[in-house]
């Protein structure tokens, strides 16, 4: 039974099934396993890179802050469309900085709700979460 403290292990131990000395299955609590913690790290490292790239593109004026928050919230246009009620093609338009700048407060609010941030923070790519 692996006991390598992972992200979940800090919050809750997880149930695993393993055999005891007589070969009978019992449940045991595990703190995590290095192999899968590493797998999770790989996934998040990739996300971090995507967020950094998106941020740079917004700063360069190549994309609107939506791109940053989509990467930050792991949302593709499909998920964001479902959360906001916009069509995907509308979202793609709103990803252009000049279109984004002209969006009404009401439209921005829908995005802010989907990302769980304030409209002001949406415009400035500010996040308050650790």
């Amino acid at each position: 039974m692996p006991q390598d403290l992972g992200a979940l292990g800090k919050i809750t131990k997880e149930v695993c099934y393993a055999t005891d000395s007589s070969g009978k299955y019992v449940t045991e609590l595990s703190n995590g396993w290095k192999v899968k913690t590493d797998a999770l790290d790989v996934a998040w490292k990739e996300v971090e890179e995507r967020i950094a790239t998106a941020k740079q593109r917004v700063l360069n004026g190549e994309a609107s802050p939506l791109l940053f928050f989509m990467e930050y919230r792991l949302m593709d246009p499909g998920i964001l469309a479902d959360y906001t009620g916009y069509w995907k093609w509308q979202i793609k338009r709103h990803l252009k900085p000049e279109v984004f700048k002209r969006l009404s407060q009401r439209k921005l609010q829908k995005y802010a709700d989907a990302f769980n941030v304030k409209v002001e923070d949406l415009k400035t790519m500010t996040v308050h979460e650790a």
Partner: protein
Amino acid sequence: MKLDFEHRQSAHCESGVTSSLLRKISGNKITEPLAFGIGAGLFFCHIPLIKINNGPAIAFRTFPGLIFKRTCNALGIPVVRKKFGSKTNAEAFLQRCLDEGKPAGCQVGVYYLSYFPKEYRFHFNAHNLIVYGKEDDNYLISDPVMETTTTLTSYELERVRFAKGALAPKGQIYYPDTTAKITDEQLRKAIIKGIKNNVNQMLRIPGNFAGVKGIKYTGEKIKKWRDKLGLQKAGSYLAQLVRMQEEIGTGGGGFRYIYAAFLQEAHVYTQQDELLEISNIFTQAGDLWRTAAVHAAGIYKGRLGSQEDFNQMGDYLAEIGELEKAAFTQLKNIKWK
């Protein structure tokens, strides 16, 4: 208000919720492995062309919702299951369940699930939990993967019940008829039905990317990943495979250990001695999945990376595919007493 409900931690959310909801009426007999096995939970599927979180779409378990449905079906227990267009109606219905004294299962998305560690919050919408009461604005939650019970505010619960994206829960709520009774004979028949279902699902499913054939298919794909995707991306794909296999909810070894545990419990009810031997084969399969995961970690951590290493990974999966084919063929050939 707090219903009489005992939280029990389990490995996998849906089989955990199923066994918890059925516990009382089964007189404590429905354990997590029994729910998983009767619900024919074991599966393998690698959907081509579709990407999840920019990686391969691989599942080690059956389609969400099926475990609860099949388990109740096999036991002959009527089920209430509802989805909602309106958030208000969804909450009103939940409130009514609680008023009637029924703990209710809810399908939720984990991305905005506040008590989950941040590292686990992807847009995965097929998580399950039980609501068993409400105090002020807080719903009392029994989440099977957590050690203890927890709470969500009504807004937080609404948000996860109406998470968006693939497999959106749409407020789905479900509970079994709590006046039903489960006898040992019903249980025995349900176990046999569950095993037959799982045999069909793994051996007879058409196409080459699901069931035991799917494992080999993924193995063949892996051998090509290095040339096709480059070393880094190929490593990320392997990391995703390992996450689906070992991450929270699988009980380890891509659910193979839970299934092995199920077969041991099935033996108690059916007295078919073959089940113990076949259980051992699933333990071996689980061990081999873990060996493959260690090898994969060597690749995504950068210790390994040659084409030979990818071939080895593919060969592991081919071997596992053969092993599971043998196990399910033996299950298929059992002459039930």
